[in-house]
């Protein structure tokens, strides 16, 4: 393993934390205005059990929402990729839906599915993150050059075979590109519900309790924990991409 590959991002994170510490110190902000990185270890130590429980809550609900987004987004993308009519019919609806601030949907979902907190949260993570996947799969399939279809089509291969052997693998790089965007979006979805309608679960609710108690170090510790989870999930996607679409990466010249 190339040590530079790990050292470079690590150093940039350390530089960022040092800068943050410096700004707080230079402005002489007390920690009820702005917490500094050096305040965080104490917060983690004090609430470590809550952090573990709530991180897990946030993580599984995000991943569940993301999984739904992959299944639904890919199916929708397939429909839009293969049918012009479907594309014309669905695009305005999708774009319109995506333009709605999802925070406004939290009370709607909360009323629709009263008490179904896990379901609500997963649903929101899904709703906010399927769009990029649907669009990129749709574009990937609709821009497939006709020759790619013809090399198998001329042999009498079925549409399904052409999809499985050519269209699907060819769309994978676009799919993973979209999935990387969707990962971070899904976290935002989960936390919207956890913060706006807190029900005692997830990092969002821990943030909310920090806000209620004016515990700034706790709030910032939650934000950093969220960032950390986001990075972990992002690199999980990168690892999957390497396995399934590593061929798309050109060697550096």
């Amino acid at each position, binding site marked *: 393993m190339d040590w530079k590959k790990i050292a470079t991002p690590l150093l940039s994170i350390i530089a960022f934390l040092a800068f943050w510490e410096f700004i707080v110190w230079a402005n002489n902000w007390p920690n009820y205005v702005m917490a500094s990185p050096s305040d965080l270890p104490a917060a983690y130590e004090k609430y470590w059990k809550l952090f573990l429980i709530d991180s897990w809550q946030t993580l599984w609900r995000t991943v569940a929402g993301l999984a739904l987004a992959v299944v639904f987004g890919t199916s929708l993308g397939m429909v839009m990729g293969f049918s012009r009519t479907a594309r014309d019919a669905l695009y305005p609806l999708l774009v319109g839906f995506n333009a709605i601030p999802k925070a406004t949907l939290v009370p709607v979902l909360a009323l629709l599915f009263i008490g179904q907190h896990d379901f609500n949260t997963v649903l929101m993570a899904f709703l906010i993150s399927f769009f990029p996947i649907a669009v990129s799969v749709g574009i990937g399939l609709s821009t497939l050059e006709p020759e790619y279809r013809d090399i198998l089509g001329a042999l009498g*291969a079925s549409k399904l075979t052409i999809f499985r052997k050519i269209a699907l693998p060819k769309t994978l790089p676009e799919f993973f590109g979209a999935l990387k965007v969707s990962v971070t979006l899904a976290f935002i979805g989960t936390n919207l519900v956890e913060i706006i309608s807190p029900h005692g679960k997830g990092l969002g609710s821990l943030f909310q309790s920090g806000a209620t108690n004016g515990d700034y170090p706790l709030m910032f510790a939650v934000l950093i924990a969220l960032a950390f989870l986001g990075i972990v999930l992002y690199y999980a996607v990168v690892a999957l991409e390497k396995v399934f679409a590593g061929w798309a990466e050109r060697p550096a010249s």
Partner: protein
Amino acid sequence: MDTLIDIRGVTHAYQTKHGPLPVLDDLNLSVPEGEFCAVVGPSGCGKSTLTRLVAGLMKPDQGEVFLHGEKITGPRKTVGMAFQNPVLLEWRSILENVILPLEIVAPGMARADKIARAEHLLDMVGLKGFETKRPSELSGGMRQRASLCRSIVHKPEVLIMDEPFGALDNFTREDLWQTMRDLRAAEPFTAVLITHDLRESVFLGDQVVVLSGRPARTQYVLDVDLPSDRTIDILYEPTAVNMLHDLRDQIRIAQGRDGGAH
């Protein structure tokens, strides 16, 4: 020899925003079994439509296309296709790319046999040692060689090529002509080659068909009476040069028709 491909009175038009665009007009063409038919004509005259008709990928508005006296109604496993773009699958190795048609045509074939067949072809076109490489690691000419292997790996009766050498530089193109000639000597197939290159049509073809401007009809057929083991040098000899002049005149007429009455 028996006629393998028989195109009779084929007329076809595409529907566009500005009304129907006729591309083929009462086109007739027949290719005897084992022969190499090169088709030349002005650009946009409907040559690619012709390849799709023979491949069974589309049906003509009027007229019929026969293969072995049997009317073509759809795609068939006995056809191979190659295009200007080699369309290799980037996620497969060169060997796996060549094997692809066998997965459709002969799903029951043992994998070892598929590999042996693909390796044999790759060896013949000079790609031995590149089996495990990705397409992106190969030059344009090598990619086109691999693409040719893929188009004949399942031993098709008919090989349909739509300007396969069009994007290559001159010397690479001439190399590939010779590869094509050698492949034909080793593997019997009937070929239809769409090209813009008159020298290519004379070097590779047993007959050269000149299509008129759009809508295309058969304007002229030239029998290329040259030995089958021709070399590039033959193109500079009087017989071939006369043929090239002849074809050049026909292209001029074809272009004139395009700009004139239509």
